[in-house]
C-alpha cells in the first residue's frame, strides 16, 4: 500500500464533515495543510458548525505536499456538503510557505519592480529556489516594511486545480500565520505606555525589528502572536493589524516550555519587545492521544492561549493514531 493510499485511508476514517440539518447554502471549509497533519473545520455564516472540527495525522515522512493534497481531496469527497456549496480556505504550514519581512524600497511603488524586489528578498534568505516561488506581499502603508510570503508555485497551482476538479470555490490560500492573525479576536485600541529608548534600541537591533520600536515610540499599542505548529514556533509582532516583525524557530513537543524562552531570547535581541505585555498563542499541533498525553506545563501569564481557528478536534484514540501512522 503506497503512502498516498495510506493517507487517503486515514482521512476516510475521519468522521464525515457535518452540516447542520436544514441549513443549506454556502459552507466554508477551513483547512490546515501540514506535512504530517490535516485539520479542518466547517463554517456556516462565519460560525463553526458543532462537531465539524477534525484533525488527522498523515503518514507522510518525506513531508511532500502531494500527500496532503490527496488527503484534502479525500476530505472534500467524503463531505456531506455538496462540493459546489463549499468555499475553501486553505492554510499552509510554515514548512511550505516561507516568510520574510522586506524593508521599504521605492521599487515597491511599481508592481513590476516590486515583484522583482520581493523575489530578491526571498532569494537572499532562502536561496535561488525562491526565484521560482509564487510570492504574495502585504499591502502596508508607504515607508513601512512588508511581509512577504513565498510558496512553491506547483503547490499553489495544485491546490487551485484540486478546487476546480471538485467544483469548489477556493477563496483563500495563505500561510497559517495569516489565518491566525485573521481569526484573532480584535485587540482593543489602547495606547501603550511610551517605552523610553525603544526607538534607539530598535535602531541598533537591525531592520526587521525597527517597526515595533517605532510603534512603541509613537505610543500606539502593539501586540504579538505566536503560532505553534508541529516542530516550529513562529512569533510575530502586530501593529495596526500589520505584521511588523517575524521570528521563527524549531521546537519540540514541549513547546509550552520553549515558547517563553524563545520570546525571552527575542526580547534580549530587541529590548523594545519588552513593552508588549500580551502574546496571543495559537496551537495548531495535532491533538495528542489521551492515553499518551501528559499534562502540559502552564504558560506564563503574558501568554494567552487562543482558540484554534480550525476548531477543537477530539483527541484521536491510540488505535486510530497507530493505524494512521
Amino acid at each position, binding site marked *: 500500500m503506497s503512502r498516498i493510499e495510506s493517507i487517503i485511508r486515514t482521512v476516510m476514517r475521519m468522521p464525515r464533515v457535518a452540516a447542520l440539518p436544514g441549513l443549506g447554502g454556502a459552507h466554508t471549509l477551513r483547512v490546515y495543510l501540514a506535512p504530517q497533519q490535516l485539520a479542518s473545520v466547517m463554517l456556516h455564516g462565519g460560525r463553526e458548525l458543532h462537531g465539524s472540527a477534525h484533525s488527522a495525522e498523515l503518514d507522510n515522512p518525506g513531508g511532500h505536499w502531494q500527500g496532503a493534497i490527496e488527503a484534502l481531496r479525500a476530505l472534500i469527497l467524503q463531505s456531506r456538503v455538496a462540493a459546489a456549496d463549499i468555499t475553501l480556505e486553505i492554510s499552509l504550514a510554515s514548512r511550505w510557505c516561507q516568510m520574510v519581512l522586506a524593508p521599504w524600497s521605492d521599487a515597491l511603488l511599481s508592481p513590476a519592480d516590486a515583484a522583482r524586489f520581493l523575489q530578491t528578498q526571498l532569494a537572499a534568505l532562502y536561496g535561488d529556489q525562491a526565484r521560482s516561488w509564487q510570492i504574495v506581499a*502585504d499591502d502596508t502603508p508607504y515607508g513601512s516594511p512588508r511581509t512577504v510570503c513565498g510558496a512553491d508555485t506547483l503547490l499553489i497551482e495544485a491546490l487551485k486545480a484540486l478546487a476546480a476538479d471538485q467544483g469548489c470555490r477556493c477563496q483563500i490560500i495563505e500561510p497559517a500565520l495569516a489565518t491566525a492573525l485573521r481569526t484573532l479576536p480584535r485587540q482593543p485600541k489602547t495606547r501603550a505606555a511610551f517605552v523610553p529608548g525603544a526607538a534607539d534600541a530598535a535602531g541598533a537591533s537591525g531592520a526587521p525589528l525597527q517597526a515595533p520600536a517605532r510603534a512603541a515610540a509613537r505610543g500606539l499599542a502593539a501586540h504579538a502572536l505566536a503560532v505553534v505548529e508541529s516542530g516550529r514556533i513562529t512569533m510575530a509582532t502586530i501593529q495596526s493589524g500589520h505584521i511588523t516583525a517575524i521570528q521563527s524557530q524549531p521546537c519540540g513537543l514541549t513547546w509550552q516550555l520553549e515558547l517563553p524562552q524563545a520570546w525571552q531570547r527575542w526580547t534580549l535581541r530587541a529590548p523594545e519587545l519588552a513593552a508588549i505585555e500580551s502574546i496571543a498563542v495559537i496551537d495548531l499541533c495535532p491533538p495528542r492521544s489521551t492515553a499518551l498525553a501528559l499534562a502540559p506545563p502552564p504558560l506564563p501569564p503574558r501568554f494567552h492561549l487562543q482558540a484554534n481557528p480550525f476548531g477543537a478536534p477530539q483527541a484521536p484514540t491510540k488505535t486510530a493514531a497507530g493505524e494512521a501512522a
Partner: protein
Amino acid sequence: MTQLNFIPRPVPLTGWRLALLAIGLLALVPAALSWIARAQAVSHLEAQLTQTQPHRLTRPALAPAQQKELDQQVKAVADAVRQLNLPIARLIKTLQAPRDIHVALLALDLNSQPSQDGSDNTSPTTPAGALKIAAEAENAQDMINYLAFLNQQPIFRSVYLVKHETSADAADHPYHFQLEAQWRQ
C-alpha cells in the same frame, strides 16, 4: 490587516469604501437632476422648432428618360446663355490691329471652350473663353508685333502662337498664322 492570500481578491466594497461611494453618488444626484431637467427643456424646444419650420415641398422623382431630357434642355439653355453673354463687340474691337502693324484677320472661332488646366482660376460666374484667330501678316515682324499687341490687352489672359507658315503661292510670301487667346471679363 495583513493579508497574504495567494488568490487575488477584489477589494471588498465595505466600510469606508462603501461610505465614500454613497457620498459620491449623493453628490451626483443634484447634477443628474439638473441634467435631466435641461435635457427635457432642450427636447421641448426642439419639438417647438420642428413645428414652426415650414414643410419642405417634395418634388416627385422623374423617370430616367424624362430626367435625361430635362438635363439636355438645361444644357442647351446654358449654352444659349453663354453665347448670349459673349462680349463679341468688345473682342472684335480689341482684335483690331493698330495701323503700324500690317495684319489682316482671316477667321475667328468663338466657340472654343476655355482651358480646364489649373491655371484657370476664374470663378464660374465670370464669363471666359478661348478664341482662335487666323490671320495674315506681311512679314514675321508684323506677326510678332501683333502677338505682343494682343498680349497687352487686358481682356486676354494669354495669347500664344499655334502655328505659322509662309504662303508660297503668293508673290510676296505673306505669313499665315494661327493664335489662340484665353479671354475673360
